[in-house]
């Protein structure tokens, strides 16, 4: 704080209070999740803070339990398929919305944002009703479809943002030089929106891997995702194995966010070395 601050002591107090409040809120945001990690390495059957010692017992429990591992693998499968599907379908739709002439565009946009606005419980129960008749409950296809529609809005909006960010003259130039729409997309558009597409894919994966409400309804006893398994276990007991799973999931999220940030800034830098447009 420089000289004028002398005249306004109340101003400094106000600023300091606001700053302190803000940091208190970040502690509120982060602490609950982070407190789980030390507790997960405690040796006892009950969660304690601070832990009474160090043991990887509950991590071994997780890796040794077929039910946990199967649920995790199933979540990974569904997540990978949903990510690929949402990224491809979402990118195609974003192109149609920005660069195409789509009849009923407003309605399509409403349909895209639908799964975000409609409460997930409504979607979950509705999908359960129809998936049961289509024999899709408990199937990989069913989960992949459900997770794809839930992740799509995020993909579409990320890719739309990326499409708006670059100069459409670059595409026009390619087209008027004789490249067809496919070559233009492959060699001009795709490289320019790549950072957006990659981060969209990562978020689609997190959304799918994390989705609990719809999974809760469209799973059955032998085919369930990790969140569904966690939901069941939390309901019965607050066990240390769950703390170990929660800690690993948190680490995975941190890795995904850091990864997304690195990929994005690297690709951004790469595309920025192109001659600047306009």
């Amino acid at each position: 704080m420089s000289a004028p601050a002398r005249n306004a002591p109340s101003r400094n107090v106000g600023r300091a209070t606001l700053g302190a409040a803000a940091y208190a809120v970040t502690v509120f945001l982060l602490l609950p999740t982070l407190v789980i990690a030390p507790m997960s390495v405690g040796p006892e059957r009950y969660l304690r803070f601070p832990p009474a010692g160090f043991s990887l017992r509950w991590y071994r429990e997780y890796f040794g339990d077929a039910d946990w591992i199967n649920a995790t693998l199933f979540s990974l499968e569904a997540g990978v398929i949903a990510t690929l599907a949402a990224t491809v379908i979402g990118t195609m739709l974003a192109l149609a919305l920005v660069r195409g002439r789509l009849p009923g565009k407003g309605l399509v946009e409403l349909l895209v944002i639908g799964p975000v606005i409609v409460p997930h419980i409504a979607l979950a129960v509705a999908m359960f009703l129809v998936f049961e008749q289509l024999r899709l409950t408990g199937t990989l296809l069913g989960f992949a479809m459900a997770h794809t529609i839930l992740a799509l809005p995020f993909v579409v909006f990320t890719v739309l943002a990326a499409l708006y960010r670059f100069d459409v003259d670059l595409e026009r130039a390619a087209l008027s030089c004789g490249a067809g729409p496919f070559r233009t997309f492959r060699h001009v558009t795709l490289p320019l929106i790549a950072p957006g597409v990659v981060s969209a894919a990562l978020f689609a994966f997190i959304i799918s891997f994390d989705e609990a409400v719809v999974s809760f309804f469209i799973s059955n006893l032998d085919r369930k995702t990790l969140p569904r398994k966690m939901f069941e276990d939390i309901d019965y007991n607050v066990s240390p194995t769950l703390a170990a799973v929660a800690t690993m999931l948190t680490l995975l999220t941190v890795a995904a966010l850091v990864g997304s940030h690195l990929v994005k800034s690297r690709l951004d830098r790469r595309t920025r070395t192109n001659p600047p447009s306009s």
Partner: protein
Amino acid sequence: MTARPKAWLLGGRHYSTAASLALAAPFLVLALVTFILPLASLLHESLFLPAPTLTHYQRALTEPVYLRVMLRTLRIAAAVTVLTLILAWPLAWVMARSSGLKLAVLVASVLLPLWTSVLVRTYAWMVLLQKNGVVNQLLIGSGIIDQPLTLLYTEGAVVLAMSHVLLPFMVLPIYSALRGIPEDYGRAAQMLGASEWATFREVIFPLSLPGVTSGCLMVFLLALGFFVTPALVGGPRQMMIATLVSQQVREMLDWSFAGALVGVLLAFVLLLVLIFKRAVRLDRFVGSA
């Protein structure tokens, strides 16, 4: 090579109607099977089975047991909205006035919880709030209380845990609104003699209102239909509408009534979205992530 661009290149719309439809087709098919058809069937179930009737809706809106659940849902959603607004505003303000490492730390502290599993965060609150949980241990250890308090399975616990889960949805839109306000505005107001409080009340807060509206709407809508956190942290006594829907489907197998509850929920959500149409801006979340 012609100097004049062809007509179909103008405005950047280089795909024909047929090509656009082809690009959108996979989405439209998927949306039909996973979104339109399911919701339509469920609402059909609530209105026409076994015969055209409004009795399910009447039951949902008049029987005291269900009315209580609806009112509790509205009350909790409103409380969560107010609490997240109070917590989010100062954080969003400090974020908007930060840069470099400080901003990175603050943004990370909002985005990490946003992307961390809702189940993990709910589980964390259960661990913290249970009878021999961390909060009770701390309170007893510091001599404030000598008997552990019942914290879990209360309405307060539901509001607290839901606020934690939904807080990022309030911070991000307010942050994006505040970031758009030039710092000069505040300075100008103070040079013209406004006090710090008057500057906040007359200039800064009004300019943050688009973000506040957007955040409140998002949090309120998400809170209304929230399933995981209230079901686990609230237990059966603090039942909200989502848990009631789940119970009707899984335990009572009463699809028509569940459909009517969903119909009421959807009508409410749509009404809010129509009123605040301009505040629903998903790009705010995606853009900042």
